[in-house]
């Protein structure tokens, strides 16, 4: 399917602050795009413009081909949005609230009831339908927010920190729900929990200071980590200087890092010179020298490290 969300040169200024600075991307059906970025990066502001809440200083947003500024009603009809913190009318019950949302979206009668029932079953809200929202726990409030966002089965779903503040079980539940819906929708969610990217996203985009820094699959992002394909090993009963030197001679190896020692157990990490796999070469070197290796493993690179490296370049890991 085609591109359901198309964003071109999006920019937002708040007085002297440039919150979003020329963001362009598109999202296709079946994609779950994770927006990553430190606090204040411009994730929420971008989402507020994509959903038509804020007017961009410059740039365009198209939802299923409809421009959110020129054709807001058509575009908004195809959007589900869970704003940050899942706001809802606190003095309403979920039943009344979902009925209101359904009616605003043009459903009436049996169709409305059916959609509410289906959605309530999907997000497991049944037990609290007649309690006012203000009395609900955080997890249930979030589910109410999700329910209003998916009630009309929108082709485009946008969620600002959907799992923020939930406990691990609730997080898991929300992620499963998102994954279950992913196939026939285009989904954008923001998060600063990096494990979430692995759990639900097919694509991740790191934003800092209003700009897109990198965009790719979670695996591609991890590959940008200097740690990616590094080999960590621990061995005993040898002279550390000799090992250091020998590891430095391994074909394809770059830097060798001394990770310290416990008694006579020494740990080293060998970084590949160009990100390629060097584990075969390292094991050959071990065999040739007849070292007693206690531990040997290949690093995969961590998203949070890439994240830190890209968003705070000065404090990057080596």
């Amino acid at each position, binding site marked *: 399917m085609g591109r359901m969300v198309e964003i071109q040169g999006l920019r937002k200024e*708040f007085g002297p602050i440039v919150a979003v600075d020329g963001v362009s991307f598109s999202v296709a059906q079946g994609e779950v795009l994770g927006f990553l970025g430190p606090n204040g990066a411009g994730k929420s502001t971008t989402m*507020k413009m994509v*959903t*038509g*809440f*804020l*007017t961009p200083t410059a740039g365009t947003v198209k939802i299923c081909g409809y421009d959110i500024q020129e054709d*807001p*009603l*058509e575009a*908004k*009809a195809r*959007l589900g*949005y869970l*704003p*940050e*913190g899942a*706001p*809802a*009318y*606190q*003095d*309403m019950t979920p039943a*009344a609230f979902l009925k*209101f*949302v359904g*009616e*605003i*979206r*043009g459903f009436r009668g049996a169709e409305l009831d059916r959609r509410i029932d289906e959605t309530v079953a999907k997000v497991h809200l049944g037990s609290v339908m007649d309690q*006012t929202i203000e009395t609900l726990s955080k997890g249930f409030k979030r589910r109410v927010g999700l329910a*209003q966002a998916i009630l009309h089965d929108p082709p485009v779903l946008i969620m600002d920190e959907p799992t923020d503040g939930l406990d691990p079980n609730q997080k898991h539940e929300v992620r499963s729900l998102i994954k279950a819906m992913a196939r026939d929708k285009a989904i954008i969610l923001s998060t600063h929990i990096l494990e979430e990217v692995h759990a639900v996203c097919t694509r991740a985009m790191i934003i800092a200071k209003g700009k897109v820094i990198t965009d790719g699959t979670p695996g591609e992002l991890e590959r940008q980590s200097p740690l990616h394909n590094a080999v960590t090993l621990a061995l005993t009963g040898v002279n550390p200087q000799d090992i250091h030197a020998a590891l430095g001679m391994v074909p394809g190896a770059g830097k060798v890092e001394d990770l310290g020692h416990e008694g006579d157990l020494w740990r080293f990490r060998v970084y590949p010179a160009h990100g390629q796999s060097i584990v075969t070469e390292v094991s050959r070197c071990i065999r040739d020298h007849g070292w007693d290796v206690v531990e040997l493993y290949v690093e995969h690179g961590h998203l949070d490290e890439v994240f830190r490296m890209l968003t705070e370049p000065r404090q990057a890991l080596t």
Partner: protein
Amino acid sequence: MNIGRIGVIFRRELASYFATPIASVFLVIFLLLSGAFTFYLGGFFLRGQADLLPFFDFHPWLYVVLIPALAMRLWAEERKSGTIELLLTMPVTMGEAVIGKFLAAWCFTGLALILTFPMWVTVNILGEPDNGVILAGYVGSWLMAGGFLAIGSCMSALTKSQVIAFVVSAVVCLAFILSGFPLILDFFSGWTPHMILSIISSFSFLTHFQSISKGVLDLRDLVYFVSLIVFWLFATAILIDMKKAE
């Protein structure tokens, strides 16, 4: 402009008054105060006349306090709780949202006025009033309430704080009453050209309300209130658009 969606917003807003103590507190205070003013301050019985003039005379003053209290939550609460982000990202236009919420508050004041019917019953038992004049008084009072509400709606769009919204709209409403008061006009009359003076006084709620409540439903007074409402609702929409980011 989609009437169906205005209706949905209207019903939700109206229901929200009754989901909280707001409705009952407002209605009880309105009925108590309007009764107290009429009978004690207005000398309802002493006048020996079968009409509701003393009742209506106090409405502008009652409204200065009560209407801002009703209007203050219209937009300030939506902004404070973040539901404005929900409302304005649904397929509704700004106009529909502003009108739907305003109409809910306006109908609520209509209900408060209807609940003063014992006053009308009393005066009909005691004498033979001109019920046409009384009806005009009710219509005028309701129109004036609409004017105050539209001002309150606008002030509520200005801030996230309901307290600030209340105080500012009470002051603006007061200004709209006082601009027709002799005392205020005297203050201006020394140094202000006559034309400006008459413009100031023509903006007063009091001038227009008093002529309606005497039983004269002049088209000009109707136009005055309706255009006032339209103007302030328009301002509301513009302010929300400007302020919603905060």
